[in-house]
């Protein structure tokens, strides 16, 4: 698939740090975009930026995707305004301080709700539509944190890990229909979501991550994208560490 026929894209969580950069690249390629995010003011600012960069057609819809009740309206709007969409990118997520999720069940549930429950719910709506039309691509941003439960970040990690498993199954289900499912696993990236973490200045550049994502959307492979690429190798090693040792590691 080339950029030329990858034209109509829905982005769920369009104000996320990674989505912002992905949209800019897609806009410059002449894609039509439907952006969904919470704040209508943010959406109109993003729209103006993309228009100045030469975007052909950018539509927006404001909704809180963490709330499953709002999903039907989002899906309806998408089918009315961009009925033959071919790509859906789920880019929203939240990362609370791990300590808060350990002491507050409400925070824990919210983390799971945003990163897994609501994400799998809305992907199910769009998956059904693409499956019926036997075309297109579903992509979702999970995280390398979902590859192994770590002391310092296991709540966020388990939600993203669950989403990765969900995508794995969905990929297999949609394969006969010719619908592609891409699991995007970024390492730590410099975005507003990670600003509170130590060493945030050393994290990956969102522009580089966006470049990898856009390339993955254009091609047939891979099914699972690690970005930056080094994380594929890092996580291969991390996953091999025996649990008896791993449980003693504090990272």
């Amino acid at each position, binding site marked *: 698939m080339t950029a030329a026929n990858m034209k109509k894209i829905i982005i769920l969580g369009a104000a996320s740090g990674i989505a912002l950069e992905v949209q800019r690249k897609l806009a*410059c390629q002449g894609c039509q975009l439907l952006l969904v995010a919470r704040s209508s003011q943010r959406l109109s*600012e*993003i729209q*103006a*930026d993309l228009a*100045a*960069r*030469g975007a052909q057609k950018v539509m927006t819809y404001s909704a809180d995707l963490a709330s499953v009740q709002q999903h039907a309206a989002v899906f309806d709007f998408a089918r009315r305004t961009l009925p033959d969409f071919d790509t859906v990118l789920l880019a929203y997520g939240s990362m609370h301080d791990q300590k808060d999720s350990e002491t507050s069940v409400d925070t824990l549930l919210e983390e799971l709700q945003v990163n897994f429950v609501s994400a799998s719910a809305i992907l199910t709506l769009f998956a059904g539509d693409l499956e019926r039309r036997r075309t297109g691509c579903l992509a979702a941003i999970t995280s390398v944190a979902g590859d192994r439960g770590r002391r310092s970040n296991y709540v966020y990690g388990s939600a993203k890990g669950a989403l990765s498993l969900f995508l794995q199954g969905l990929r297999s289900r949609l394969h006969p229909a010719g619908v592609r499912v891409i699991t995007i696993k970024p390492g730590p990236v410099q975005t*507003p979501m990670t600003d509170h973490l130590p060493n945030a200045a050393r994290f990956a550049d969102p522009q580089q991550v966006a470049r990898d994502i856009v390339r993955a959307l254009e091609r047939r492979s891979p099914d699972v994208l690690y970005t930056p690429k080094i994380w594929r190798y890092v996580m291969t090693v991390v996953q091999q560490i025996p649990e008896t040792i791993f449980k003693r590691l504090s990272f």
Partner: protein
Amino acid sequence: MPDILRAAAPGSLLPYGLGRSYGDSCLNAGRELIDCCRLNRILGFDESTGMLRCESGVSLSDILDVFLPKGWFLPVTPGTRFVTVGGAIANDVHGKNHHCAGTFGAHVRQIGLHRSNDGLVICNSNSEDNPDMLRATIGGLGLTGVIAWADIQLKRVAGPWIDAESIPFESLDNFLDLSRESNDRFEYTVAWLDCFAGKNPRGIFFRGNHAAKSGKEFHPKRGPKLPFALPAWMLNLYSVRAFNTAYYKFHASRRGAAVVPYDSFFYPLDSIRQWNLLYGKQGFLQYQCVIPETNVAAVEELLDRIARSGMGSFLGVLKQFGSAPPAGMLSFPRPGLTIALDFAMRGEPTLRLMQSLDEIVQQSGGALYPAKDARMSPALFEASFPRWRGFVPYIDPKMSSSFWRRVTGAQ
């Protein structure tokens, strides 16, 4: 942003972009920096006039990526594309076209400036709206406030290709003849210099114009990345000398005209990411000065001292500035010859050499470039920018920088 500025203590803040200033003009030791890189939206573009409005954290690289395919180029570009618009204004950067286009600031029509006391102030170059504040902010080292957005006049080009020529030269006179002869016919001129050659430096003179045809399609390549700092001993007198000789011979043997992509013409160093690690963990100091053209003897003396010290490196650049009036109150470029050289940091001997170069610059009526400096004395700053006190009233009371405190004694 207004909230951040209001809440801050006096003299505690400095806006920070991509950090490509070589010295401490982009640092604020023990105090705070405002990371402006996420102020990176493009706010508007007029396709009929080429006027771009963008936030200050947009990089020149972003502008090229978005607008070069549409036939627009930067009015002025420094030797790296990885600087922000805010940084380009705050240092009033110059490029290979200084002799005909002046500095970056000369192409900034209007800015929105966050000031801690006055909120967002609109400054325009040719109206009643705070033209003095604009002149202070251009070259103002980030001290006048945080630039929110700027209107920049882009330049129409046919495509990404440059008609380039390279010509070897073997003396300073030779260089000056080439430069004077080329400045009328070529938009871009610059020379690479072998700094081991002494008074009569050999070098390669590069000149070029935007190609008139759009040419074949252009695919930017991403270069390799230097993964870690090289051991300091790898850059020594012999290896650098060998490099310089090879570089000279290579270009001398290929003298003549060629059509080259814009990125290799303007940004040869950007092709190796993290090239600064070449200099090892100790890093390097850069020395960029300008010396009045009437004082060629001073340039010769400078080159002679560097050659005799044996400490020069492979990045020597020589360019004749034009006579455009400065766009900012503290703009560095002025008529004369500018020389930029890297010196691997070897402690005391490196600093001593640079001090001896300072003497020549000061006596000749020249100046040092704040964006490249980490060590000039207050006296040399005074000599370089005798009117700096006229700039002080425009400084935002919440802003300060390591550089400013070092050269002016401000608190």
